[in-house]
């Protein structure tokens, strides 16, 4: 037993280790839970099973070479990981991004948000005990977006699509039509999804008033993303930073009132609807043609090992589907970053797991974990 194991004191308590090989820990994650009957009296998350040395690896290779590695952080939303990393490097080296590339970036980021939230709802329902139906409906729709990613970036999940100062390639012929089709059908799919789920009494009674996260705790624990907004804090980096071209779109930030699992579920559904609004505006505004990679960026992409940003540091952050995803880079003027740090939203959001789970049933802990939306690739890095 490692030193992180929880030792129960009283004989009545049952000590259970949920994970790392457990059907619903979303990867190799372990929760050491002490149960009184089925009620949780203590919970300790154990992480690190999937640690891959991401930051140290990045400090030993060129800036661009860690771009494909960022795909593998949160492997569901590789596009937004690319986005945040590219932003950090652009800030560091002072690279501008051409107009059309900005639009493509936001397009990819919002499509990624759709993928992530749809999948999350599917997996959450799996944790709730539904027999894969919502998950497979989510996969069905995600497939269409992944097809578009494949046509554009060349890969379905590990896109490696963003470059410093733009993106790797322009949309393919017919790509625009593909996106328009996706955006047009997505809200119809969301309606179907909601008909299946939102009014379902079992889902509601399983989710409402479960795992309540108070506003104060959420802010103190530096929680970000939909979880924070479900607790009623109006903080969305797309609105706060107005990075990229998010100031050109009209969209709202849905906020929950209670901060329980149901709010976290529904805020995500509403965010998807807002994302669809952004995409609709974006498709109207997007310039037909244009540069997709600035000249400075092209130089960096053509010979990454030779490319040296000026010495200094930069922190680039975006509102990834899971929360604030930030990359902090320190450059000493060499082709490799001196310090490379990731602020992974999953990892920071998982820290409040015990606070949300105490006093709940063991079945709730699984659901709460599902509603936090972690990807172990990002938690353990």
């Amino acid at each position: 037993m490692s030193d992180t194991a929880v030792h129960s004191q009283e004989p009545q308590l049952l000590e259970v280790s949920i994970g790392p090989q457990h059907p619903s820990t979303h990867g190799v994650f372990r929760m050491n839970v002490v149960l009184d009957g089925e009620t949780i009296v203590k919970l300790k998350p154990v992480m690190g099973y999937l640690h891959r040395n991401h930051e140290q690896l990045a400090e030993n290779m060129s800036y661009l070479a860690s771009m494909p590695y960022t795909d593998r952080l949160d492997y569901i939303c590789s596009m937004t990981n690319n986005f945040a990393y590219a932003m950090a490097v652009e800030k560091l080296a002072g690279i501008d991004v051409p107009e059309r590339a900005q639009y493509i970036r936001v397009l990819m980021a919002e499509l990624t948000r759709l993928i992530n939230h749809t999948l999350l709802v599917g997996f959450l329902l799996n944790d709730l005990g539904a027999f894969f139906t919502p998950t497979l409906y989510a996969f069905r729709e995600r497939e269409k977006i992944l097809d578009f990613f494949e046509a554009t970036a060349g890969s379905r999940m590990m896109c490696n699509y963003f470059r410093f100062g733009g993106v790797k390639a322009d949309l393919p012929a017919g790509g625009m039509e593909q996106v328009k089709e996706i955006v047009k059908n997505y809200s119809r799919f969301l309606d179907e999804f909601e008909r299946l789920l939102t009014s379902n009494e079992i889902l509601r009674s399983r989710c409402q008033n479960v795992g309540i996260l108070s506003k104060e705790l959420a802010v103190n624990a530096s929680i970000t993303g939909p979880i924070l907004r479900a607790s009623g804090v109006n903080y969305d980096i797309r609105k706060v930073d107005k990075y990229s071209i998010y100031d050109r779109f009209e969209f709202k930030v849905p906020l929950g009132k209670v901060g329980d699992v149901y709010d976290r579920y529904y805020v995500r559904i509403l965010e998807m609807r807002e994302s669809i609004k952004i995409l609709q505006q974006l498709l109207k505004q997007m310039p037909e043609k244009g540069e997709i990679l600035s000249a400075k960026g092209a130089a960096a992409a053509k010979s990454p090992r030779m490319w040296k940003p000026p010495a200094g540091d930069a922190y680039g952050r975006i509102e990834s589907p899971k929360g604030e995803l930030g990359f902090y880079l320190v450059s000493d003027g060499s082709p490799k970053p001196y310090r490379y740090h990731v602020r992974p939203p999953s990892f920071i959001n998982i820290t409040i797991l015990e606070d949300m789970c105490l006093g709940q049933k063991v079945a709730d802990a699984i659901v709460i974990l599902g509603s936090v939306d972690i990807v172990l690739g990002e938690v353990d890095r």
Partner: protein
Amino acid sequence: MFGFGVLKGMSVTLWNFILSYVYPKKGITTVQYPEQKKEVEERFRNFPFLVYEGAPDNMRCVACDICSKECPPKCIYIIPEKDAQGRVQKKPATFDIDYAICMNCGICEEVCPFDAIFMDHEYELAEYERLSSLLYHKEDLLKPVEHFAKIRPTDYGRIEATRAAKGVKGRAQPVAGAPPKPAETQQSPPATS
């Protein structure tokens, strides 16, 4: 009242159940893999291959070692050919890619100044043994440029156009005579990596 939401959800599943029979095109998303295969997109990238023109001996690669140094997981291993005097030739003697390590990022293709390495569409590469059978040697990697033209016609057209503009015609003559590209000033391989 308890139950109507459940019934609503059940109507959705029933609808999908019926749809899968009456209109399988929309109601069923399965691709029955070994018989049916999904068309991969043109830009789909999986594992790299080497391009040759005409005969396998006439490969574009000049063993400049850029790809092997840029490769993030360092899965490419190159030894240039040497002539009898021990002088380095612009041709690889050994060109190995460990497909077990390669992570399909496509950076080798992007950085190659000689358009010699491209990402393939081949994805059925399952092997029973993972050490030697996934280590692809030069002979396994070499494919004709026509193969590239077939799988990625758009990219082929674009690349051939730029090559023609720069006056590079295959590799009948060593590329040393070709005018350097704009970015090539930075590309001379450094002594240290």
